[in-house]
């Protein structure tokens, strides 16, 4: 016997199962970030001479840009869902099927996420370059903990979105992320000349020999085949739409957290 209301809404609650699940998960996320914000407030209020974030070397224009990117991605995310929902959806009078619009918008969302993380790691690199680490100052401790956790959430949301875009995209994303993680761990050792250079070269070679062909391979697979969401779109369109909505709810929440993080860390 099948589990009821996996796709259809239950009449008395007006919800399908996954939507209940994701909202409960978001409730727990509110408490997670709530505890971290509480920590920030306690440490700030308890300090003699709190130095606001803007007195540190946080770059406000870059932060503003990143905020805009994330907001834009939230907008494209909800548009992707709307494109799936509306059978004759189109914009700019283009003759494109609405499922293709969905993929365009979802692709833009993932791209925005990539830009966000790229800019974020650029910011992190700047801090580390100037020897500003979590242990340097309590403000940096808060900054790195909060933005790091948020970046993890962004990455998680991107993986899910990539999966909805097509399984190949998801694999490619995870592979690239693992490669970057590897480089980030072994890369800095190159500077210290403690024998880490060999590891870094090994990492670079690993990237060159395996990473690039793999990336190209997955890109090819992504384009030509392995498009599970297109298959689902044919067999069970409502389920795909629901998945996009649920993934979108999480993505909007990540955006919402950043909306608070940005002024709190950069401006106040």
């Amino acid at each position: 016997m099948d589990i009821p209301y996996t796709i259809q809404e239950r009449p008395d609650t007006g919800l399908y199962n996954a939507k209940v699940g994701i909202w409960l998960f978001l409730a727990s996320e509110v408490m997670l970030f709530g505890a971290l914000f509480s920590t920030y407030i306690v440490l700030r209020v308890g300090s003699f001479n709190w130095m606001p974030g803007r007195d540190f070397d946080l770059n406000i224009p870059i932060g503003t840009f990143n905020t805009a990117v994330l907001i834009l991605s939230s907008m494209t995310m909800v548009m992707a869902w709307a494109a799936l929902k509306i059978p004759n959806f189109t914009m700019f009078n283009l003759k494109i099927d609405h499922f293709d619009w969905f993929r365009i918008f979802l692709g833009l969302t993932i791209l925005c996420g990539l830009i966000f993380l790229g800019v974020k790691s650029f910011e992190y690199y700047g801090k580390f370059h100037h020897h500003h680490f979590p242990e340097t100052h309590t403000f940096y401790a808060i900054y790195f903990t909060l933005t790091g956790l948020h970046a993890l959430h962004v990455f998680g949301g991107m993986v899910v979105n990539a999966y909805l875009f097509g399984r190949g995209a998801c694999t490619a994303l995870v592979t690239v992320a693992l490669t970057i993680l590897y480089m980030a761990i072994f890369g800095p050792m190159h500077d210290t000349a403690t024998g880490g250079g060999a590891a870094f070269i090994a990492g670079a070679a690993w990237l060159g020999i395996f990473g690039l062909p793999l990336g190209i391979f997955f890109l090819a697979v992504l384009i030509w085949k392995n498009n599970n969401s297109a298959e689902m779109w044919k067999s069970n369109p409502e389920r795909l739409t629901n998945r996009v909505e649920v993934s979108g709810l999480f993505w909007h929440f990540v955006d919402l957290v950043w909306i608070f993080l940005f002024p709190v860390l950069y401006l106040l």
Partner: protein
Amino acid sequence: MDTITKEQPHHDAKDAHHDPMPFWRKYIFATDHKVIGYQYMFTAFFFLLFGFGLVMLMRWQLAYPGRPLPVLGKLIASVLGDSSMPGGIMVPEFYNALGAMHGTIMIFLGIVPLAFAAFGNFVIPLQIGSPDMVFPKINAASYWSYFVGGVVMLASFWAPGGAAQSGWTSYTPLAVIAPTGQTLWIIGMVFLITSSLLGAINFISTIIQCRAPGMTWMRLPYFVWAQLMTSFLLVLAFPPLEAAGIMQLMDRLAGTSFFLPEGLVVAAKSNVIAGYARSGGGTSLLWQHLFWFLGHPEVYVLILPAMGIVAEVIAANARRPIWGYRALVFSTLTIGFLSFIVWAHHMYMTGMGSRISVFFQTTTVLISVPSVLLLTCLILSLWGGSIRFTSSMLFAVGFLPMFGIGGLTGLPLAFNAIDLFLHDTYYVIGHFHYVVAPGTIFALFAGLYHWYPKATGRKMNESLGKLHFWGSFVCMNCIFAPMMIQGMQGVSRRLYDGGATYLLAEPTLHWNIFMSMAAWTLALFQIPFLINFIVSMKLGEKASDNPWEATTLEWSTATPPPHGNWPTLPTVYRTAYEYSVPGAARDFTPQTQPQE
């Protein structure tokens, strides 16, 4: 964590219950809620026994401080190295590790998975008339996350410096400067928190979405209400601890000082490490706040499922409806709400001002009102019933006074002034062990004896069950009642020698040996249970589909329930506990029986 958005419920045609599945598919990577319930039960039971083993070691040290433990001591030293029990004599660090891990394992790896996850998984879908949990794969992920967390916790015994030593509360700044075991403790906790979170979300979604036709909220068995509230506590209270865990991890690994006060100087064994708070001071009290924000709801996570089990067992065996069903439900909801705003009563000693103390004192005393209501309803349910004293009923009835003692001894601790004296003494240990050990664990045994026939098709042996109950009942009281006496004498809970070198403890020292003997005897009385549990699977008396003649939905399905539970969804026509209805043909009316 983020996989929740990806993993939507879906039910492959391949999963259909007619096809025989290979063993690993059915029992290892299972998605059936009942099998996951069994997985949880066996793992949690292992950890319960393991945690009990840890405390039996501690009781040796408390009863005979500094004396080598015969045979077993050498064995442990050879397994764990000389940092544990060289020559059979326990070193203080190992004693601390035992204490910390006993608490952690019993609470997070034993009772919560058993009471909440195992019973919840097995019983909830059956009681609400659902074919499975709404997210079967997330359910499996929840179990495996728990499993990994457990393995990490066990592995931490072999970490350099031993397992976590800073108590199950991991108070900072001690926990930050503790050896590696503490890092593993945090990582293990993150897995356990993830597991509880996934499980709790699954339970709530299932209860909201998958109630069978006709199963309105007020027709739900009380057990389901209790599990629903427990799930909410887990969803909303655990994340702050996760956040705190992340920050403690940052403190330990990245050199931050969220929880380290300014100017902290730590004397290590050989050298003095000064200026520990590298990034500018934080506050240790923040950890306590975040920890107890979880810690207090956690107490109700431990007790509410037990209440639910006891209510089911009492209703079925007293042959009369639960007295005050609505009162039970609304008390549970009130407890759930209030439990979020009482946490700082664990922190009266931290120099809080009198105004905030009064606030927490008031809410703490308030929360005892619904707790007493719960107990009163359950006791009144016995009134005028024709009680069958089966093993499960014995445990359920035994739960009532034990939980009563545990609850009432908690009242003095709620008051600021008295708590200043009793804080951190054995009185506190006695108090919460009365709630959790003869309280919750008795309820768990009641549940095991009660639902065993549904899971296996056979009953457990009654004589062995009664031996198990009476032995455990006497031993439990012999262990925990003397703790109250010691506590009121002022003996601190964390003394390595049980107070042997403290003058104030001298009048109560003789109880140490008594309590230790009782603890070891308690272990002996678990042997009949283990034999009973294993042997009855093959040789027990055959049970019908409804051996206890109970009304709730789980007894209307086949035994053991197949994958998918029912051929078609059952329809519910009446409330959960229609026992001894005047004029009815039998003394119980199942929920599936249509109204005339």
